[in-house]
């Protein structure tokens, strides 16, 4: 009988069992997960074992020890352990399927617009390299469950009705990443299989988050990250392929020792465990984390009181956190009647930002006072909030611009409580407010007068300015500066989160190298800026209250958003 946790969930759990920095507010568990200190200890012990005698551990004993971890996970997901292998992460598992299937002309892969980014790219590669047609259903979320099922089934039927085409594979999620939304996957799998399609369920957000019964679901392929919601150190994912489909998976990704050619050059051992052996070793890396499943299970049972207890708290705190956030931000939570999208540890809260319309943009007089975001800056806002939230307040706000609106995705977890979301929401509110300040433009800092002066707008007017932007990573700056390349060159500072920007003094000269490379001939002053450690001190002292005049407002043109990773 699982006991309630001895250490209460929330901040006490965070302080007792997790290793977050005290200045870090972890409201985004969903992207990379984390693991408790006890699992880390188990991991360290495993690593020490390897270093004491590497060869026996890696070459001889690992596979059988891995079998135990795999069996434990297979038990939880309710499948046979010879149908379940470990891969480093969901992206690898899914791409293994995409690159293995014997695609035929006319094959179509079906997905919806919120398919995970790297999977979308995998499909693009398939299209380019293998001529497989990806079919994306473009429809705005949120969508009621019935409608999700209907749209996928109807589209499948439409495609199948076209001569020479068939939906060979359909991809759906257990829980979509961005927005964070549960999908009626239990209904989609049989519905699409009934139309003759194989179904690949992207359960990246799966084990430890939502109930998975592979014996009932019976997907054709399934993958779930253990490092996201199961407290196993990254990266570790379970990859499920039922026996009936194992012959389709010819190779691991990368191909390695376990590959068995159809025409063997040498006598090979019997094919019994071919699928498992294929993935036992796919190249040397540190896979000691795969063996941490038992330690994670122990923690979840002994310290947290079991899966149900964890899930109950996470659902509750997600609901509370979302409500609090919506209240403070003065907005609402994404939902729609007839949807179970919120039956998970994600909630999406609308951010108090609005995009200026084309008409409003043209009406320049009002534009500057309306507090809205210029469309030219739209893609940069999300990344700016992410970065500034981190550097100023130790909070990473997972946020994104989706079809013209900004959303904050929160992750409920056993180590956060209401006060955390209250604090986060206040910080986010202030960050959003900073974007509303009129006259958003590039500003230059004059060291002699200690003043910020607005630069003329328009990239072609920027010449020979020395720019000081504290606490932005060079990568971010370079990506989003979007200025005329002939005016400015950048050199990245390679230390933690700090940025060194160089600008050219001579407007007539053109750079001989692209931004990001050191152009000796065009060096000007280098302005060393605050290091990351100091940004931490700022945030510990409550810096970033949002009203500091010395903070230059930053806003820049950009062509497109950097990775909106989830």
């Amino acid at each position, binding site marked *: 009988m699982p006991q309630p946790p001895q250490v209460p969930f929330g901040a006490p759990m965070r302080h007792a069992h997790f290793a977050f920095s005290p200045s870090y507010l972890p409201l*985004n568990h969903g992207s990379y997960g984390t693991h408790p200190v006890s699992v880390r200890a188990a991991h360290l012990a495993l690593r020490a074992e390897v*270093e004491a005698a590497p060869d026996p551990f890696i070459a001889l004993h690992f596979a059988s020890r891995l079998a135990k971890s795999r069996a434990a996970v297979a038990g939880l997901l309710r499948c046979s352990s010879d149908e379940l292998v470990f891969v480093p992460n969901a992206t690898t598992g*899914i791409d293994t399927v995409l690159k293995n299937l014997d695609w035929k002309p006319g094959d179509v892969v079906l997905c919806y617009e919120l398919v995970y980014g*790297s999977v979308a790219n995998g499909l693009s590669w398939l299209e380019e390299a293998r001529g497989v047609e990806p079919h994306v259903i473009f429809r705005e979320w949120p969508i009621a469950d019935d409608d999700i099922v209907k749209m996928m089934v109807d589209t499948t039927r439409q495609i199948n009705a076209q001569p020479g085409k068939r939906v060979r594979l359909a991809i759906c999620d257990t829980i979509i990443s961005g927005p964070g939304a549960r999908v009626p996957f239990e209904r989609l799998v049989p519905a699409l299989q009934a139309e003759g399609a194989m179904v690949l369920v992207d359960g990246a957000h799966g084990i430890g988050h939502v109930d998975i019964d592979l014996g009932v679901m019976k997907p054709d392929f399934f993958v779930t990250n253990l490092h996201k919601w199961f407290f196993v*150190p990254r990266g570790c994912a379970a990859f499920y392929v039922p026996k009936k489909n194992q012959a389709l998976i010819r190779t691991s990704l990368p191909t390695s020792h376990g590959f068995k050619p159809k025409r063997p050059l040498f006598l090979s051992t019997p094919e019994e465990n071919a699928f498992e052996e294929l993935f036992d070793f796919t190249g040397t890396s540190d896979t000691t984390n795969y063996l941490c499943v038992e330690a994670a299970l122990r923690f979840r049972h002994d310290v947290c009181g079991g899966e149900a207890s964890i899930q109950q708290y996470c659902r509750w705190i997600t609901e509370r956190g979302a409500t609090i956030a919506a209240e403070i931000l003065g907005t609402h939570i994404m939902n729609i009647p007839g949807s179970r999208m919120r039956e998970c540890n994600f909630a999406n809260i609308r951010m108090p930002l609005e995009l200026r319309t084309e008409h409003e943009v043209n009406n320049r007089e009002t534009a500057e006072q309306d507090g809205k975001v210029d469309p030219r800056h739209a893609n940069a806002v999300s990344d700016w909030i992410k970065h500034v939230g981190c550097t100023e307040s130790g909070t990473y706000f997972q946020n994104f611009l989706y079809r013209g609106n900004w959303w904050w995705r929160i992750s409920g977890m056993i180590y956060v409580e209401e006060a955390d979301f209250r604090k986060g929401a206040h910080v986010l509110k202030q960050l959003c407010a900073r974007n509303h300040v009129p006259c958003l433009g590039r500003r230059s800092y004059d060291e002699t007068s200690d003043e910020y002066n607005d630069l003329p707008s328009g990239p072609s007017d920027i010449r020979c300015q020395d720019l000081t932007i504290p606490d932005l990573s060079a990568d971010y700056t370079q990506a989003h500066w979007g200025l005329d390349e002939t005016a400015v060159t950048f050199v990245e500072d390679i230390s*933690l989160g700090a940025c060194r920007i160089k600008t050219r003094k001579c407007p007539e000269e053109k750079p001989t190298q692209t931004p990001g490379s050191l152009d000796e001939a065009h060096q000007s002053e280098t302005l060393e800026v605050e290091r990351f450690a100091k940004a931490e001190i700022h945030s510990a002292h409550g810096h970033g209250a949002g009203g500091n005049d010395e903070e230059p407002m930053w806003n820049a043109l950009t062509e497109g958003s950097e990775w909106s990773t989830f």
Partner: protein
Amino acid sequence: MHPADFETAGTGGGDANSSFGHAMRNKHFFFAPSYRPLNHGSFGVFPRMVQEYQQRLQLESEARPDTFIRYTYPALLKEARASIAPLLGASTDEVVFVQNATSGVNTVLGNLIFKPGDVILHFSTIYGACLKTIQYLGSNNPVESYQIDIEYPMEDEEIVQVFLDSAQRVRSQGKTPVVAMFDSVLTFPGARFPWEKLVDICRKLGVMSLVDGAHGIGHIDLTHLGRVGPDFFISNCYKWLMVPRGCAVIYVPFRNQHLIQTTCPTSWGFQTTIDRAKLNKSEYFVKLFEKISTTDNTPYLCVPIALQFRKSHCGGESTVMSYCTKIAKDGGRKMAEIMGTETLTNVTGSLQQCCFVNVRLPVTLADLDAPDSKGLHIAKWMQEKTPAEYETYIPIKFYKGGFWCRISGQIYLTIDDFEWAAETLMDLCKRVKGGEWKTVSNMG
């Protein structure tokens, strides 16, 4: 937290004159006291100083996961790339990291576009997983492979000649050798390969050269690599550079970067050909590999600290590699003396210009009254006995009718380790001669 901060931190501080051998081993490495580490080449090891730094990084990745992974990591990654590029005589933006050489080889070969008639040339000494990769590729793409059989000992000139002959033969069959894959240092036997000469030949023949330098960085000097100019080069850093597993570098000179479209797996950085054409030429390659998929990539970030360790505690790359090469040579000679056998050499000694030595065991099939077909099994039996009963690991293979072992020279070894190896192998051979190998029923 910066590699420079670790110069004198930790238990290894201030002893830049730590001598090689047991002092080095006890002070800087983690081996169980009774374990004899004679097989550095397979999985590598890393010293305390590097481990401490890696652990700091790992702690940071849990202290602030998003901050570390999204912002800190890319900056440190670039630093790591910048620190390793000079070892390959390359530019920073010509090198990227992946988990291991197998991944690297899969990435490169998986990107090449083949047409009917195309042939991949490789030697019979190719690493197993690489052969599997080529086989898989052939099952899915219009490309064949052509294996060039070689048997050691061989002189460099012989290798070059047989390569030329093979390319010629393929052409005479109306086919096109498009890429040749060969090692910098072979896995088994452990032998330096005349890769520079072959790269040159490939260029003259119009064949792309893919050098599998799994045993490369930190093992042999590669600072001339950029000048030699292979089309692709892949090397593990966790093997001989004392970086934690897994970490390998893919070198793609600027002129070839347009050939690399996707990582393995395909991920965030991928862009279609059309979209990619809009980008600045040199932007794509580096960005492509910056974020592949979620794994613990802290090993990549340990390259600078590993180099720092080798410099401040081991006297630098040349010193390390010289010692490893010499101890392997001297140790091997000693083993051959004790066992009454020989080391694998060629006339010029070129194959021994590496940190491996291959010594023949004092047992033959004739001694065992066993047929050729049992050679593999007997070798495997012996090899598996070494960790099971002798607290070491010695790769033993049946090669050219004899039983050979491969020992890896390293800075934590001295001659007496090789003497011990010889005595251990003699004991093993005695047991083999006693027929113990026959009692094991399973082949696998």
